[in-house]
């Protein structure tokens, strides 16, 4: 059913639909999605949302940044009025807000409404960035917006458990106020490894977060860099393999083997993770719910085109 909707969506034309989503107060939830051409390839059971209790792992390379997929999930969930927790280890809130604006969601208002939660994992994450005691954060004089929830910042701690606690507190507080389907997004797990935490701890964090998401009926989305070059490092390789082992669904984004192209920016593979196979054996999911396919994509200004191999605009 969702496939049919998606096809309709394409036929109507993207721009007009985006506008309708933006300005119509009664837009249809099933139509609210980030990239129309991606949606039919995602798990269909709870479309446009991800199935609850799963872990979607996204791997990318330097040549083909998979950040656009995160923006897809952020905008999809926010449009569907479902809470999103974004742990930004690589980017700042402003970046996500501006991209969100291009995709037709206003993260600032979503944040005020309590739908979108941003965890700052950039400025205070490591022991290097611990600020000097003399420096103070400016007290914003505009204290009228007290209703706005306080932004959560990950403080440095040698123990990743503290970081887990911070995220857990936030997620549980959201869950306490609503019974919706939550999406927890970790932008760039690789950062944690790079910043000196051992691979084992990072994997434990992922596992804990996955359990947490299952508990609160949410989904976990993680992004991790998996360049082939870096596989020489034991830690890095272990992290990639470990995270993929925890995953139910895997989306692998990489550049074309043949190099760059004007009309194809890379290929995107939908893969089945061990978790999916486990569910499949248990009969919880059907095989056709996540067909393992490899597609091509092209990133545009405010959209991403996903198409079958050989169907790029340059060919057709």
């Amino acid at each position, binding site marked *: 059913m969702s496939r049919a909707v998606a096809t309709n969506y394409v036929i109507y034309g993207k721009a007009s639909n985006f506008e309708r989503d933006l300005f119509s107060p009664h837009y249809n939830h099933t139509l609210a999605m980030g990239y129309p051409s991606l949606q039919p390839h995602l798990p269909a059971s709870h479309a446009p949302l991800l199935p609850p209790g799963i872990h979607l792992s996204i791997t990318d390379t330097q040549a083909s940044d998979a950040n656009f997929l995160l923006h897809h999930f952020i905008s999809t969930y926010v449009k569907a009025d479902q809470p999103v927790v974004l742990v930004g280890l690589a980017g700042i809130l402003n970046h996500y807000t501006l991209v969100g604006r291009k995709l037709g969601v206003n993260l600032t208002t979503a944040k005020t409404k309590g739908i979108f939660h941003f965890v700052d994992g950039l400025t205070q994450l490591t022991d290097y960035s611990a600020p000097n005691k003399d420096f*103070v954060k400016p007290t914003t004089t505009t204290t009228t917006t007290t209703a706005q929830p306080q932004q959560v910042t990950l403080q440095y701690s040698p123990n990743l458990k503290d970081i887990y606690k911070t995220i857990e507190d936030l997620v549980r507080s959201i869950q306490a106020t609503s019974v919706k389907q939550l999406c927890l997004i970790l932008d760039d797990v690789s950062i944690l490894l790079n910043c000196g935490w051992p691979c084992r701890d990072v994997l434990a964090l992922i596992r804990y977060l996955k359990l947490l998401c299952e508990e609160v009926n949410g989904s976990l989305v993680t992004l991790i860099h998996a360049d082939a070059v870096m596989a020489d490092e034991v830690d890095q390789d272990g992290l990639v393999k470990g995270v993929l082992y925890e995953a139910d669904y895997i989306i692998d984004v990489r550049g074309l083997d043949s190099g760059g192209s004007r009309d194809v920016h890379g290929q995107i593979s939908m893969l089945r993770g061990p978790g999916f196979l486990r569910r499949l054996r248990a009969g919880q999911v059907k095989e056709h719910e996540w067909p393992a396919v490899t597609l091509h994509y092209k990133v545009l200004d405010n959209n991403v085109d996903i198409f079958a191999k050989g169907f790029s605009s340059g060919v057709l």
Partner: protein
Amino acid sequence: MSSFKKRVPSAVVLPAGCRLSAYNGQVLISTGVPSLDDILGGGLPLGTILLIQEDRQTSYGQLLLKYFLRQGIVAGDKCAVVSGDESPEAIVRSLMGIVGEESDPGLTAGDDDDDDDDAKKKKSGPGDNDDKLTIAWRYSNLKKFESGVGERPPAISSRVNAATSNSSKTGAPPTASQVPFCEQFDLTTRISAKALESADTLLIDSGELMRSEEESLDSEVDSDIDSDMTADRNKQEVDLYRKVLEKIRDNLVEGGFSTTMTKNLNDSPAATPAAGLSERHIFRIGINSIASPSWRSKTPHDLYKFLHALRGLLRFSFGAAVITIPAHLYGTPDQRHALDGSTTSPFIHKIEQLCDASVRIESFAGAQTNAASAASAYHGLFHVHKVPVLNALVPSSTKLSILLEGSAKGTGGAAGHNTRSGMGSLGFKVRRKRFAIETFHLPPEGGVGQRRTSAPSDPVVSTKKSSEKPSKESSSTSPSSSPSSTSTSTSSKSASGAPRRTISIGSEAPARHSHSHSHNHNHTHSHTSTTTTDAHDPVPGASGVARKMMGLPPRGLQGAVSSGCSTTSTTSTPASTIATPRPAGPSAFARRPLGQGSSRPPGTPPGGSNPLDF
């Protein structure tokens, strides 16, 4: 949220030397190199880190860093220079001067040095003969091929020079609107003492910092006699990256460049109203050769943490950083000796991930490839590994960059495909007044000197003059040599054992001799002009005598040599008589002197040799 990244109307006053990105409205600063600005999408966005992977055996990477710092001094920005291998003061002192400002008048007068062939071509008028195509005329209407980014219009630079000289006289700083986005620099001059004096620089000598920290540690250890020395040392080894970052952060915050942190409660930081923006400056951080052996660190995580923290710091401040790294030190064993100097070590790769943009310089001087000889017009290749993607899905350089578009990329994630597709498509050349990154292309095969479809008039005259002597020589020697040549012909006769051939030779030889004597001058001329089209020529430029000296057979003998004839004959004339009967030989055409049409051998196709060619 930082206020400066907001999409603002263009009427908003910007800090000096900044401009707004045409694509996503980010505030950009110049790297001092227009073509690098182009690659980054108009300039380096505020709050980002540019990584430059250094070249081997040359220091173009540091040159780019100097351009960045010098441009900062022009704009009145605060420049923090961090260096361990070289004292930061030396780097600042060796910065280049501005074109026309600091050079002595003598140099300025003879200013036509420059810049490269392109500039000279531009100077010559469009109707110039050089531009006219002698073949493939239909392409003459096409747009001229541009491999680089156009230079700034000169009007700006003159205005700016006037402004800066004015300000240096009056002592008033130039206003924001007068500061050019990218100044033009002259590598032959040094930064003036005055500019150096007024420059707001922060010098951090990481080597010095390391030593002082170690000393303080040592003294601590000395005072604490009970503790085991080595254990203590291991425990509290100097964390250089942390020290450097702390210094940078302290200066950045105290200078009021941060938008989130401030020194004391009363100042509201950045919160500086829009009016104050014009007086605002940028905090430029230049780090020279980070992670070189002088930056001792226990684990690579130190550098990762440093970069991550620096990014977190810069994202919320009016600052940007350019970092050079000797990436070639970090290759895996099999890559360390890679011919093109490429390193794809995990370490460098992770650092690239933590920076916003990454480029690699590969100089021909340091590479063991033979690309240098083929592309002498360039000093090296320029690889773009990553371009900044901020506040958008698509990097702005795919929309705005001429160079990246020209090198047929424009990919979504980054221009990183460049590395995999083998030869990078960008090259750079350093001229006196500019560091130019251009679309890399090889010169025409055989070099520009060989590209002559029709012999230009001037070179022919010169070759005539030069060939005067040999022609006289040959005319004097030809009588004596002709008997020997006939002897060779007879010997070849006997050797080859082809009677029909020898008959034809015998009949033609006398006539040919007379011709060659009468047209001796023309004959040598024809030699020189035909050599340009002779594909079999092993030494293209060598004339007859020079060929003899080099131990090469005379030109006309090539067909004979290849057919196994003896090379004892010295003059080309008899040799040609040997060669002519072979209708298919290419030298048979080239040999025939002018006005020989009547005595054309029967096997030769009539159209095969155009007398006008000679």
